């Protein structure tokens, strides 16, 4: 996609006053990195770039920036789904946000495959979670994690101690994945930001697959749809037919 096109769109949105800020990417502190840019003046749109270094899901800034007036966000398909999801979850006013769509040209790293047997899977996750530093960068970067107080930061009840080691980290990650049901657009930010390389996005992706199979639902596709676990139909899959 032509960068000029993006800049022009950003400029128009700022000039018309439709938005107060455009969140995009600019060159970072080295050639191989971009960094989030907050463009508030039409004169600054030339700072925006669009290339292979632009990897962040900028929807993470949507709530923060919408508080100060309208915001436009440069978003790939997966990022745009996060924004739609935030509207569905009543975290964002749909009139306060615009999406500047960009094609998804991200060079995704290969995903590790989940092992076949259950025993191996359990060991796979235990080994991954053993590395977890509990920095919660995965949560901080994830647009679906918008809670003011995360369950893991609660003292009473305390769901898992903030200790290293696979057990408490497991509790954090599987619960976080469950909370992403109907929210995850597969942007893979959680795994990208993880300083120790845990492929956490695989958990949310599994959840999304099952959300699709059970409820014919895909996260962030329809601003007016109810969040998948915030609704039901009497005809939903039932344990009695599915061997509860």
């Amino acid at each position, binding site marked *: 996609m032509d960068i000029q096109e993006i800049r022009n769109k950003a400029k128009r949105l700022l000039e018309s006053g439709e938005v107060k800020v455009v969140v995009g990417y600019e060159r970072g502190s080295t050639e191989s990195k971009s960094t989030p840019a907050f463009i508030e003046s039409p004169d600054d749109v030339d700072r925006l770039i669009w290339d292979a270094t632009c990897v962040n899901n900028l929807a993470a800034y949507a709530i923060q920036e919408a508080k100060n007036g309208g915001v436009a966000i440069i978003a790939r398909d997966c990022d745009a789904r996060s924004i739609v999801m935030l509207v569905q979850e009543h975290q964002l006013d749909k009139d306060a946000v615009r999406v500047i769509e960009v094609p998804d040209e991200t060079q995704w790293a290969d995903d590790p495959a*989940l092992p076949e047997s259950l025993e191996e*899977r359990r060991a796979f996750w235990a080994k991954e979670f053993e590395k977890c530093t509990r920095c919660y960068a995965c949560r901080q970067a994830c647009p679906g994690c918008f809670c003011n107080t995360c369950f893991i930061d609660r003292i009473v009840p305390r769901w898992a101690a903030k200790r290293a080691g696979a057990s408490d980290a497991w509790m954090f990650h599987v619960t976080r994945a*469950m909370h992403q049901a109907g929210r995850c657009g597969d942007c893979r930010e959680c795994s990208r930001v993880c300083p120790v390389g845990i492929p956490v996005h695989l958990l949310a992706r599994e959840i999304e697959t099952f959300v699709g199979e059970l409820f014919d639902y895909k996260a962030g596709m329809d601003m007016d749809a109810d969040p998948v*676990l915030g609704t039901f139909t009497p005809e939903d899959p039932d*344990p009695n037919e599915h061997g509860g």
Partner: protein
Amino acid sequence: MSEETTTIEQQTEEQKPKVWKPRILGILCNWCSYAGADLAGSSRLQYPPNVRIIRVPCSGRVNPQYIFKAFQRGFEGVLVLGCHPGDCHYAKGNYYARRRLMLLKKFLPSLGIEPERFHFEWVSASEGIIFAEVIAKMTKKLEDLGPFSGVSVVQGVTQINTDAEDEHR
């Protein structure tokens, strides 16, 4: 953590039976299955004694975190029972629960946990017999599956250490 939960943890440690028996955490709706369990008890129906029961006001109160927490703490199985669809005391609680719990059940194998370790079903206040049957069936299934080694066992580490030592020497 509430008194109730801690007591249950304690029990599971203390009452680890000599002959291995699976430990089941049962989360039961007050209005139906908890009464059903009561009925099973007062009718002197026989069912395996290895269920620790938490009473909740409605199956809609069951947060998937409860179930994860039970597995993290080493329960071999978790059981959730609620009112039949249409019979929820709060009209819709069990419908919401059904979505979450169906999803959770499908998710367990992704984590390497046998889906049979989690069971949920509708049991009304008058279904004492069904309650006893559910417990018996689940216990049987869990006995067949065998003990649960927990969520944090990194398999092969001991093996790897030994191998590594051999290579060095």
